[in-house]
């Protein structure tokens, strides 16, 4: 039976080549497989955007033509005529408002959970994450009645309910961040003479800024992309981009308008995502 012996004086041990752990050394079949998978995913994500991009500038594109038969900006003009501009502003405002409410609340909840400052943390966790399990329609329908009886203005009701829906995401994101946050930095700052507020502004927030940005982004997405709650609780008076998209998509012959509105719906989150990626890569120690 063949026995593998550890390297002895006569068989010097040679370290594996490459940087870092030997476990991360890539073998050819694995490398090829990963590259193919990455390409397939890229095609899967990008392919639907190609007809969308073409429809933006297509005044006429009938089957079976491979490319638009008439180019123009009729779709953009129609979208603007249907109120795309104000709807964009409302959606942006709604996303920012939900982000502004849900991010600090999520951070506070996460801090309390991370540092075991809440009684019955399992129950609190369950309540915080309940909106994920609850069907949005059921929650919105029930709460709508309640908000009407309490005479809460529709817009405030929309922001309130969407913030509750965003809370699980912001809490989870911040909980992970607080899990790896070292309180020693804050103690160090206190002994160096910083007050509680100075510690918050000059140590706590800068250290948690990437997580706060991720959390705010997720909350923004909840507000920006919501359709059902805005429609039900807003009473149809508060028209946002997703509502315009749904309205246009439900009719026929509106393909270019739907394309314009869809791109309008995609752009702000995409820009925010790119910004998030850019700032997340900023080298540490650069702020002063």
């Amino acid at each position, binding site marked *: 039976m063949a026995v593998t012996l550890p390297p002895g004086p006569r068989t010097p041990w040679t370290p594996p080549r490459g940087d870092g752990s030997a476990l991360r050394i890539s073998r050819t079949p694995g490398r090829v497989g990963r590259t193919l998978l990455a390409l397939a995913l890229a095609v899967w994500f990008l392919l639907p955007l190609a007809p969308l991009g073409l429809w933006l500038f297509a005044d006429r594109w009938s089957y079976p033509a491979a490319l638009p038969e008439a180019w123009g900006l009729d779709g953009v003009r129609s979208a603007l005529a249907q109120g795309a501009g104000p709807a964009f502003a409302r959606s942006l405002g709604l996303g920012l408002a939900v982000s502004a409410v849900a991010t600090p609340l999520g951070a506070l909840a996460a801090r309390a959970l991370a540092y075991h400052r809440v009684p019955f943390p399992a129950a609190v966790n369950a309540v915080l994450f309940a909106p994920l399990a609850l069907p949005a329609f059921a929650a919105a329908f029930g709460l709508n009645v309640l908000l009407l009886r309490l005479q809460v203005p529709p817009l405030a009701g929309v922001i309130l309910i969407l913030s509750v829906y965003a809370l699980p995401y912001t809490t989870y994101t911040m909980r992970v961040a607080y899990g790896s946050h070292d309180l020693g*930095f804050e103690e160090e700052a206190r002994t160096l003479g910083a007050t509680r507020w100075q510690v918050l502004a000059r140590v706590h927030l800068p250290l948690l800024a990437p997580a706060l940005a991720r959390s705010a982004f997720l909350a923004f997405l909840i507000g920006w992309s919501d359709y059902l709650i805005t429609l039900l609780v807003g009473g149809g008076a508060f028209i946002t981009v997703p509502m315009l998209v749904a309205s246009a998509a439900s009719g026929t012959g509106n393909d270019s308008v739907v394309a314009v509105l869809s791109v309008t719906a995609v752009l702000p989150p995409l820009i925010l995502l790119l910004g998030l990626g850019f700032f997340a890569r900023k080298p*540490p*120690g650069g702020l002063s």
Partner: protein
Amino acid sequence: MSNDLVIDGLSKSFSSSSAPVLNNVNLALESGSCTAVLGPSGSGKSTLLRAVAGLEAPDAGRIVLHGTDLARVSPEHRGMAMVSQRPLLFPHLNVLDNVAFAATVRGVRRRAARTDAAHFLDLVQLEGYGRRPVTAISGGQAQRVAIARALAARPAILLLDEPFSALDPQLRSTMHELLVQLRERLAPTILMVTHDREEAAAVADRVALLSRGRLLQHDRVDLLYSRPVSLEVHRLMGGTNEITGTVRDGVHYSALGDLGLPADTGWPDGPGVLVIRQESISIQDNTRSSAEYGVPGIVTDIRVLGPRRLVTVDASGIRLQTEAPWGRPLGAGDAVRLTIPVSARALVPGQPDPGGPTTADTATAVISTGR
């Protein structure tokens, strides 16, 4: 010399532990002195430091700085600065702005704070490192920056919580030298926590030995070794030789014979344990010329301690240990004579417990020697 800091009857318990972490600790720090709080893991030394910094609220006792009780003073107003085992440099600030942090939170203009910080970086021999991100410096450099940052805060008391324990021995020696130089130039009052006896001896004037939350002895470094007040202190300081006997008229009588005690101290008559540091006992051949000196014995064991050897000798049924340099050939079964200088003898009350008085590794395992 006046006392900068007085710790009076400090006690602290945590709900997770039945025994108090600090039990009626009393300590006074002279202005400009360096006191090392030495103790094994879990002895409460870090809790003591955190209580002084205002990061832990004591259950009882007072911490008085320049005559002011700090009970209701928040950490940022105590005039302390702390350096921990981890440098805890703020990762979003560069080296210079880390050092300038204390000044900027005090409201000093940024340019003036940076000029001042550069001076402290020079002090820790890191001139020119100011613009580097804190991730671009080594562990030793990071600890230097942490010291510079603490000194730049002009603390009334500089608190050091095992600041060099994560560094390699060579770097640690360099940092000890740096601390000695900083003391010569700035004369800060320092309270340092360490579990390393050699580190305490290298940088501190006085050592406060803590065990299970109790202060066992607060004394000069040399006295802690040569005049322990109890067997526990002797063992925690790494002493291995304990000889039961009786004292009469300044002479200790035991199976080793009549051994005179140092005349500079009045030793009480009665039963007492003679303690002798193993480094103080010298070993000689049992030749005719040395026959009239020292205690005869037979070598029973030799263990290597790097540059020295720990030699165990059976002397009239008593196990003694001595540290001997390399050079002289020694082996188990050799007949030798042990010379015990009078100044190396000390008496402590109590009985050595049979479980572990003279095993070398009992005490050394409790507090590291730093070797």
